């Protein structure tokens, strides 16, 4: 296990900067997930940790050792690629033992081989692929390929375990199952792990620490629950959650309880520490925190709107509505199926003060409530 430190890491291709000054500390044994949309630089960051991409600027350390110019094979990392990258002409056993053979030192070859075989079998048993060791990758199912790829990376007992969207090629059911398997595996073998994904479900369930990236930078890092409940920027607020947080830009927070800006009524309680008149703000409420409000009922945050579309998803409904007195603003609310709303209904949605998030419209940064962690370091 290794402690990984990234200090102001930059990666440029010509004039284009794809990673733009990343600072991150990953403690020994932590499971860190890099989450972000396509092109945000998360895979490039992972490849720089692996040594497959040169670092343009900044410094990277494993246990205090500078790694910038260290060859990939000398870093002690194991990596699982999105498409598994299993050697197609080798059996699963050969795939697993390739790394061990490559690192075999001089001495008794027979003894070394026996040890390698034992190690391969041990990992194969752990991953439940010991019955397909003599199969070639094309003879395996998607899940078995996934396990074989994990096995190949784990068999060498890496100090850092890197996974690049390893579940994205699996179907939904298998993905869920493998997600649990990965979690179990990390509990059994607590190797420092960096996991890249654009799937927030995977990120929220697997991560000890979640790092949200956007446009080559870290937007926010922290424990998954913390990042979800107190997003530091409008990007994180909109990106995390399915659907993402409702965000409404207002020219300024209404200064009185009775006032409304663009159809959004905010009481002083909901405005929190935000001082009126500071400039344009973005108000955010998660869809699951919006409730139907009866006429005359008091609610710290209230939005009057007209129902546009109702999507029935079995366990709940998603209500898409247009905000009255605003031509373009809309909201999504996650309600119980018994809500009984129809297109065209005029309703009011409300949220409690603790569920109202305020952001500076110019910088996108969170206002009012202080972030639990403002540092991008995710060290404990």
């Amino acid at each position, binding site marked *: 296990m290794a402690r990984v430190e990234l200090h102001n890491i930059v990666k440029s291709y010509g004039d284009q900067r794809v990673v733009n000054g990343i600072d991150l500390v990953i403690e020994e044994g932590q499971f860190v997930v890099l989450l972000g949309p396509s092109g945000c630089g998360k895979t490039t960051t992972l490849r720089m940790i692996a040594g497959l991409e040169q670092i343009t600027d900044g410094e990277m350390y494993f246990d205090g050792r500078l790694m910038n110019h260290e060859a990939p094979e000398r870093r002690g990392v194991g990596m699982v*690629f999105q498409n598994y*990258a299993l050697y197609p002409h080798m059996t699963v056993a050969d795939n697993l033992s390739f790394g061990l053979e490559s690192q075999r030192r001089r001495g008794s070859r027979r003894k070394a081989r026996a040890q390698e075989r034992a190690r391969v079998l041990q990992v194969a048993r752990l991953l439940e692929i010991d019955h397909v060791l003599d199969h070639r990758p*094309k003879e395996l199912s998607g899940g078995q390929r996934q396990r074989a790829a994990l096995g190949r990376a784990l068999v060498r007992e890496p100090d850092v375990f890197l996974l690049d969207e390893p579940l994205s090629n699996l179907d939904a059911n298998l993905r869920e199952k493998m997600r649990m398997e990965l979690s179990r595996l990390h509990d059994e073998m607590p190797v420092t792990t960096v996991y890249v994904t654009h799937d927030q479900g995977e990120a929220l369930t697997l991560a000890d620490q979640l790092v949200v990236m956007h446009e080559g930078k870290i937007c926010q890092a922290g424990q998954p629950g913390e990042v979800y409940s107190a997003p530091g920027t409008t990007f994180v607020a909109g990106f995390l959650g399915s659907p993402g947080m409702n965000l409404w830009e207002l020219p300024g927070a209404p200064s009185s309880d009775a006032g409304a800006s663009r159809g959004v009524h905010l009481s002083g309680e909901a405005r929190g520490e935000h001082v009126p008149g500071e400039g344009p703000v973005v108000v955010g409420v998660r869809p699951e925190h919006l409730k139907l409000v009866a006429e005359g009922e008091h609610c710290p945050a209230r939005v009057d709107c007209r129902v546009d579309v109702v999507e029935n998803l079995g366990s709940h409904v998603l209500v898409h509505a247009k905000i009255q007195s605003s031509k373009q603003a809309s909201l999504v609310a996650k309600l119980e199926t018994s809500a009984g709303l129809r297109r065209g209904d005029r309703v009011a949605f409300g949220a409690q003060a603790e569920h109202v998030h305020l952001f500076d419209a110019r910088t996108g940064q969170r206002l009012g409530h202080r972030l639990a962690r403002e540092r991008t370091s995710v060290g404990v």
Partner: protein
Amino acid sequence: MTTLEQAPPIGRSLPPSRAQRPLDVARPAPALRRAKDHLVAYGLLFPAMAVFTVFFFVPAAYLVYISFFHWGVLSSATQFVGLENFRHLFAQPLFWRSLATSGYYTLVMIPATVLLSLGVALVLREAVTARRGGIWRAAVFLPHVTPVVATSIIWVWIFNPQFGLANFVLKSVGLPALGWLSTTQWALPAVMIDSLWHSLGLYVIIFLAGLANVPRELVEVARLDGAKRGRIFRRIIWPLLSPTTFFVVILATVNSWQAFSQIYTMTGGPHGGAGGPAFSTTTDALLVYQTAFTFDHFSLASAMALVLFSIILLLTLVQKVISNKVVFYR
């Protein structure tokens, strides 16, 4: 809405009415449609098939036919002689020598072609930046698009014993000058060098395409697994490149057995004497040409060509059988 009472019993579906299948009404019957498709396909294939038939299949069939006859271009009388041409052919020492020369030429050319073109392809892929890559690839491919006769004439100058570039280089590094095309020992190697230089570009391009098909992740994962360059090539790239290598071996085999233009141009040309000195460069293909067009024995040349065809076919089949064991298809 269909109620349970109205629904047809399971397993006995009702035939769909015309009203339910509006799109099918205008469609012709499947058999007619298939016939129409076939007609279009054959119509499109016709020009290529016509050219192939007139210039390849008919002459090839006619070659088989006249190999069993006494036949001459100028004589109208043809006489069936059965296997006489083949008997006469196998009794000729020059025929066996030409086979040996062709075999030797092929045996040297195949490994030389594979090693050299793969080496150049690896260097081009590894060492050349993307921007300059195109220029280098074009430079390597250029000899292949130049007519063999033209490149062979250049190589005749290069191998000139008095003022050729080859001997100039040898002398400048302290080695003795060679007679090249005028000696039995060096004439065939000189032709081989020309052939290699001329055909290299094609094989390099084929290998570059093969290398591009080896997934980058496999090489990266092997690096992470701690494998050095040599081991990555031996255990990952070489096995995955085996279909390409097999294709190059087949192509090099066929081209080597059929080598003619460069030998004809370099060792004699239109002034005669091709295949010398002392038949040291007389390959099977050259002997076929000389038998037919210099000595006017078309029947014998046809029999010879048929034997050459059988040898190439046999070799290709043997290679195919071997390939099933050593070539890995993903």
